[in-house]
């Protein structure tokens, strides 16, 4: 046995029940094990216990008859922005080598060696970490973990906060690590890992182990569970499409938004330029493009939060933040930044009260039900789960009857069931005639929901294409009647 626990019991402060009750698990040398389960089931906690981080680094009350941790463990965490303590790539790698007390003259060579292993070859590794893409940062995290020469590798959702491109990048890197390496993986997006692991351990929401078998068997016997737990498994999109009979094809609505020579500035540098564009009711426009291309700047320019020239209009010119707010509902990428009160109810009531609406109580009640937040209405917004936070932030922005909804990567980092819930909510709004403009990296959202795509490249809107899917469906429907 390489690592393992027997009869493990864990209790988090304030929790009424034990997280694990007499859990036993053993992992053999060279095995690659994937832990699956709904969020909050304790799989990350278990991973940290097996790696020795709990209770050594993170004190959590636990008891077990036996805990076998590896002699040295390497852990990669999910957030690319909070794994490093040094500003430069070489310094971060050196930090690990310093911890291992490697003599200074050997460091340069080793740094290049480990960076090379993850495909990060810089001519001079003295590169600022903040200049790397999120995917590259995660590869750097893998390199610094490899520099520990660990016995067992632990991966704690290493791609949860990456776009699809970065996800593939990171998994390709991990797959190149030594075949005999023992690995324990927690991951929600399993498309890429499924052929890589030998064994899947499935947990239920109370942290009870409900399956421990090879991937194939787990798939054939527990698929409904995977769906319930919001796991991104291969084919989940196809199933979603089948189940939901994707919504009615897009019928061109009335002209709603007109943009003319719009330029948005940060300081004196133009960040985004849209020469002219017209959008209609009931359209779902996805805004795509590389990181830093100016997608978010585009949305902020529409809101007048950035300094702009040119014109934009929705039922009249939008010249001030206030005018924009009344026509455009804006949902931020980080929902927490949008919350300003101390309870879910107040959060939804806030904007209404500001507009001296008389039916506050009734409207809020309807919204709580529409967004499935009724049971948590008295909680502080920060106490909600990620999915609930996102739904609340949509709710708070849609306070009036704004005809346009602007979304900045709303499905980012959400699990499958939350993502589908959100997309269905947006689709409902769209079918009632709302114009949706959504920044996204997710190709599947583009393919399955969007009616139109705007591609932004280096601060310019360079492509405006109608997406064919819905029209194809329409054509198909006509054909079949013959």
């Amino acid at each position, binding site marked *: 046995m390489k690592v393992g626990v027997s009869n493990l019991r864990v209790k988090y402060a304030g929790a009424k029940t034990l997280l694990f009750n007499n859990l036993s698990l053993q992992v053999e040398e060279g095995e690659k094990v994937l832990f699956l389960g709904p969020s909050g089931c304790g799989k990350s906690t278990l991973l940290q216990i097996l790696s020795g981080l709990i209770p050594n680094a993170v004190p959590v009350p636990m008891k077990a008859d036996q805990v076998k941790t590896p002699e040295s463990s390497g852990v990669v965490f999910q*957030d690319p922005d909070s794994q490093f303590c040094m500003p430069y790539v070489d310094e971060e790698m050196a930090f690990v*080598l310093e911890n291992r007390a490697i003599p200074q003259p050997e460091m340069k060579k080793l740094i290049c060696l480990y960076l090379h292993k993850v495909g990060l070859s810089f001519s001079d590794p003295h590169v600022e970490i903040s200049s790397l893409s999120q995917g590259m940062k995660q590869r750097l995290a893998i390199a610094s973990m490899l520099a520990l020469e660990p016995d067992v590798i632990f991966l704690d959702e290493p791609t949860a906060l990456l776009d699809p491109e970065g996800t593939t990048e990171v998994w390709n890197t991990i797959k190149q690590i030594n075949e005999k390496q023992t690995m324990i993986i927690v991951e929600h997006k399993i498309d890429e890992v499924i052929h890589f692991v030998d064994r899947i351990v499935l947990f239920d929401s109370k942290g009870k182990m409900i399956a421990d078998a090879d991937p194939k068997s787990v798939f054939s016997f527990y698929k409904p569970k995977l769906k319930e737990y919001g796991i991104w498994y291969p084919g989940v999109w196809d199933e979603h499409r089948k189940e939901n009979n994707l919504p009615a094809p897009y019928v061109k609505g009335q002209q709603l938004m007109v943009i003319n020579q719009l330029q948005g500035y940060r300081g004196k540098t133009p960040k985004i330029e849209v020469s002219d564009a017209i959008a209609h009711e009931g359209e779902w426009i996805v805004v795509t493009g590389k990181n830093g291309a100016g997608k978010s700047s585009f949305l902020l320019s529409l809101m007048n939060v950035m300094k702009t020239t040119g014109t934009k209009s929705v039922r009249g010119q939008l010249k001030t933040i*206030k005018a924009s707010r009344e026509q455009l509902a804006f949902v931020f990428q980080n929902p927490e930044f949008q919350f300003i009160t101390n309870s879910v109810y107040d959060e939804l009531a806030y904007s209404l009260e500001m507009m001296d609406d008389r039916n506050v109580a009734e409207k809020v009640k309807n919204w709580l039900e529409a967004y499935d937040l009724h049971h948590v209405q008295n909680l502080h917004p920060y106490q909600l789960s990620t999915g609930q936070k996102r739904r609340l932030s949509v709710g708070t922005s849609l306070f009036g009857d704004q005809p346009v909804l602007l979304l900045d990567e709303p499905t980012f980092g959400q699990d499958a069931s939350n993502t589908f819930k959100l997309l269905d909510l947006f689709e409902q709004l769209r079918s009632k005639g709302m114009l949706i403009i959504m920044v996204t990296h997710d190709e599947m959202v583009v393919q399955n929901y969007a009616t139109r795509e705007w591609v932004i490249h280096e601060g310019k809107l360079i492509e405006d294409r109608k997406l064919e899917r819905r029209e194809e469906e329409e054509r198909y429907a006509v054909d079949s009647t013959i």
Partner: protein
Amino acid sequence: MQWTLQYEETWLHRLNPAFKLVFFLSLFLTLLFVHNPNVMSNLTFVPFILVLFATGHRRIVIALLLIPFLLLFFSSASSMMFFGQGSTTWWRWGIVHITEESFFRGLHIGFRALNFALLGLLFALTTRPVFLFYSLIQQLKVPPRFAYSFMAAVRILPVMVEEFQQLRAALLIRGVKKKKGLRRVTQSIMLYAVPLLSQSIRRAHRIAVAMEAKQFNNKERTYYYKQTFSKVDIYFVLYIIAGFCLSYWIGYTFPYFEITDVRN
């Protein structure tokens, strides 16, 4: 977003950082015991010349950074001039009372403040935090766990600035009704501090766990950067000593002001 200033490395960057820190602190102390405004005004040129010509930063950056220091000079000098005590009255208007003594005392304080500020700027512009902390560990035997925590904290700062900008945009878009008077202050603190702090605390915790996962501990460790002393340190000390001597000599031989001790 670009947060680091572009600069060329000069000899000042090669000073031993821990030595530089201690030396600058002792300079601060020494300046407190200079009471001759002639000498003090001359002394201001010692760091000023280095700030202007030897930091390796672009002129425009230095010019921008000097603006607040001139303000500092005028504000600290004028408050002493207007309200200080003295026997030879030059001008009196209401509570404003300028005397010969208070005028020179104000000038003296102004130069001292400017001197402190220029030395601080010189230190900040020519010292990389990472080197400073390595040097503190190696020369001053600061425990690594404190030094590395500081380095991690320095890394969080730009992230916090970015978060602050996002938060500001989010609040603008939500359209927060501004309260009036004092309550507005408490309102802004609540609106900004709670989200920023909650983000930072969680981030700090994650970084700490990540550092421990990389086997950061109190055991024996080696160092990637070796901070040593060099000839440059001697040159710097010589420059300062020469500067002091020259300032004193000029101050006493060719005084601009009649007063030689502001305490009297």
